[in-house]
């Protein structure tokens, strides 16, 4: 039987060969690479940058942030608060079809929002204020919130709309439970309304997308790219070699050490800009004792003096100059400078002071320091492992012996939510462009209602209360006061150790016109070729 199949396959293969040879220089194909792959294609399972990047090509959200970071219409054409301040109304685009031909309707929006609110969903944190979604007519939905939420649309930029019918047919009514290692149909298949359809998905190997010729936005966006091929390439050197030798057209994360060489290379340009992301370390301050520490019976991180000592042990300037080659902005606060509520006065970079840090440790009862494990991803943020190595040394100088455990992000992000890491690296971008998102995910007490990425055990009644209250506050002046107060509280408590705000660099062939987007989302529908 194999023989017949081979006999059948051979002419086909040769035909393919001929067609490959005959094809014109594939100018409309963008082959791109990054260190890590999307974790899943299930759009609600993981709230993670690279995962959203892939889903933004295939799915559409109601609204999105364009290159200028402005909220722009997508599947929703208009949105407003109704007479009832607790209700938002969204007008939906008409005549939109999914890749399988199904029409897009209000039912799909209701379904998708409810799906994203399921406990398996990592997007549920963005929808905690939403209590009800109702269909008004085929192309109108209303969302009721548990109080006035003037910023609700900000929360919907990464909230992808799935086809209800397709989800039912393929039994993916519920989001994949990522932590538990679920495999559902939606993990490797997708049916969106987006500008590209998913043709082939081999996790960690290759993902192929093809232009959706029926895309509603065909006249609105350039849509010059016909095919998108993504290959994750872990090794930084190999990634650079691939761009230099012309095998890929676009690198989402060129290593900072190679920017100079890439800029100088003929036919390659590097485009840069500030990124909406802050890199920081979290300390488990809520546990009775640390799992990895050599101190038993008490938790050093529970003592604010220890956290403050760790904070001034880090030489952020050295990290910027050596590890990041200047491609970062040292930070004193876990908030990218873009967002509402960011205050330059709060973003004071603590000056490194080994002597004072040692004194603080001694005062807290750890004159000889202690040992602890620092867990880091090694394929997520720019030079993440190198940063961790560097701070390991800096902690060593004040007597805190940190053991570095660097691992791939898929392990790191599966372990983090379990709340068992003592000292860990995390980076936070703010898609809503508002401080509330940071408080809600990183500072609020961890419950099933909020604080889902606050695995530090930090809990402050004041922060919880203000975070809840600020979203119902319509008076923007009052709201700003509340935001500032939360920032002050958490800064005083030294909950996290901010390291820097990341800088974005995209490297590409010079015939591509593709300015950086501060969320680090390349929307390939917006890519243009230079003529």
């Amino acid at each position, binding site marked *: 039987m194999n023989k017949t199949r081979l006999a059948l396959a051979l002419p086909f293969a040769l035909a393919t060969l001929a067609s490959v040879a005959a094809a014109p220089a594939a100018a409309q194909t963008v082959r791109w690479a990054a260190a890590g792959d999307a974790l899943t294609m299930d759009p609600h399972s993981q709230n993670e940058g690279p995962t959203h990047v892939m889903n933004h090509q295939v799915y559409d959200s109601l609204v999105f942030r364009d290159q200028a970071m402005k909220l722009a219409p997508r599947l929703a054409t208009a949105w407003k608060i109704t007479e009832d301040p607790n209700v938002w109304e969204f007008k939906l685009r008409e005549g939109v079809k999914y890749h399988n031909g199904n029409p897009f309707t209000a039912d799909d929006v209701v379904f998708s929002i409810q799906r994203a609110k399921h406990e398996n969903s990592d997007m549920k944190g963005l929808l905690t204020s939403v209590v009800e979604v109702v269909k008004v007519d085929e192309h109108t939905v209303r969302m009721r919130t548990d109080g006035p939420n003037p910023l609700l649309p900000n929360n919907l930029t990464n909230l992808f709309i799935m086809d209800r019918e397709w989800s039912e047919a393929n039994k993916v009514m519920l989001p994949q439970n990522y932590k538990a290692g679920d495999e559902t149909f939606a993990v490797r298949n997708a049916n969106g309304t987006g500008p590209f359809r998913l043709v082939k998905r081999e996790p960690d190997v290759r993902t192929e997308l093809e232009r959706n010729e029926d895309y509603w936005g065909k006249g609105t966006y350039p849509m010059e790219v016909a095919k998108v091929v993504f290959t994750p390439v872990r*090794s*930084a*050197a190999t990634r*650079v*070699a691939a761009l*230099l030798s012309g095998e890929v057209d676009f690198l989402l994360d060129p*290593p900072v*050490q*190679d920017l*100079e*060489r890439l800029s100088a290379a003929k036919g390659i340009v590097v485009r840069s800009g500030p990124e909406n992301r802050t890199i920081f370390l979290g300390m488990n301050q809520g546990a009775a004792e640390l*799992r*990895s520490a050599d101190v038993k019976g008490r938790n050093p991180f529970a003592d604010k003096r220890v956290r403050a000592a760790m904070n001034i042990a880090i*030489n952020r300037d*050295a*990290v910027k*100059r*050596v*590890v990041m080659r200047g491609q970062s902005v040292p930070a004193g606060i876990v908030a990218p400078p873009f967002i509402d509520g960011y205050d330059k006065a709060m973003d004071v970079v603590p000056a490194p002071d080994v002597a004072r840090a040692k004194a603080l440790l001694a005062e807290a009862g750890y004159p000889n320091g202690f040992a602890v*494990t620092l867990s880091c991803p090694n394929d997520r943020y720019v030079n993440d*492992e*190198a940063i961790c*190595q*560097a701070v*390991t*040394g*800096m*902690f*060593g*100088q004040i007597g805190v012996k*940190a*053991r*570095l*455990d*660097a691992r791939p992000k898929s392990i790191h992000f599966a372990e983090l939510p379990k709340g068992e890491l003592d000292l860990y690296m995390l980076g936070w971008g703010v898609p809503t462009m508002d401080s509330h998102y940071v408080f809600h995910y990183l500072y609020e007490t961890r419950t099933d209602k909020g604080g889902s990425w606050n695995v530090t055990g930090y809990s402050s009644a004041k922060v919880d209360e203000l975070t809840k209250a600020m979203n119902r506050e319509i008076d923007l002046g009052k709201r700003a006061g509340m935001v500032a107060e939360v920032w002050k509280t958490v800064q005083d408590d030294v909950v996290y150790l901010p390291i820097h705000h990341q800088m974005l660099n995209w490297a590409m062939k010079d015939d591509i016109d593709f300015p950086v987007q501060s969320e680090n989302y390349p929307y390939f529908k917006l890519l243009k070729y230079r003529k």
Partner: protein
Amino acid sequence: MSTESPTPTTAAAPRGALARLLDSDLLHGFLRSPITVLSALIVLAILIAALLAPVIAPQNPFDPATLNLMDGFSRPMQANAFTGNVYWLGTDAQGRDLFSAILYGSRVSLLVGFAAVAFAAVLGIALGLIAGYRGGWVDSLIMRIADVQLSFPAILVALLIFGVFKGVVPPALHDKAAIYVLILAIGLSDWVQYARTVRSSTLAERNKEYVQAARVIGVPAPTILLRHILPNVMGPVLVIATIGLALAIILESTLSFLGVGVPPTQPSLGTLIRVGQDYLFSGEWWIVFFPGLTLLLLALSVNLLGDWLRDALDPRLRR
């Protein structure tokens, strides 16, 4: 499987070779081959440097607290732009002095190499002696195990042991245990050669008159094995061990390169190369070049010594 076809390196060496090892003839041959002398000197130099690393090295590269990040990426023999410090071979991304790192790294590589070879040799010789001397089902059993083991190339066995280790040992102990796991993994993957060679030599020796005679007068088996048979099989074992040392060093660096060996905060030569590879294109060639060169020199010299030893112990190849 093919028990009767030992690898070429082992087939060559004759019996009673150890006795001839210190023979002036051998020494004479050694001195006549400049390449061999050079290899021996290189191995000796690296060995001494590695042993004395804490004395020679200007820095302890394994203690992150002694590193100054601002010294990072210093070019060899040039003053660092920020700190003005000068390092012979430059520094890596973390400000680690490469000269010190190479000394300490070779220490790890050599320690793992020697320990793994010793482990493999002792295990292999013991099993080979028993198999050859006892024969029968014991022999069959040991040699079948060897066959199964042979179906798994060293690197695979080592990776597997590492996988198990990661699953069983709590993460906090990973760094400490890594080096012992490396030794165990490399050693376990390499005993078959010794066992096969020793077994075939033992089989041949067993029926010799002197062994028969010893047996008749009631000398216990362990004594016969250790006193009479073992010395006669040491020649080929020495050849295997020398080449095994080079293989073990390369295997260790490969495992570390794959990211399953020693942690990056205590780099061996392989780890240094893995990290340095990222800076190959940005012009910081020295980070990968010097550790790579050291590894190459070390492995090459040991291989050359092994090569020479094999030829020297095989009279048929003498000219």
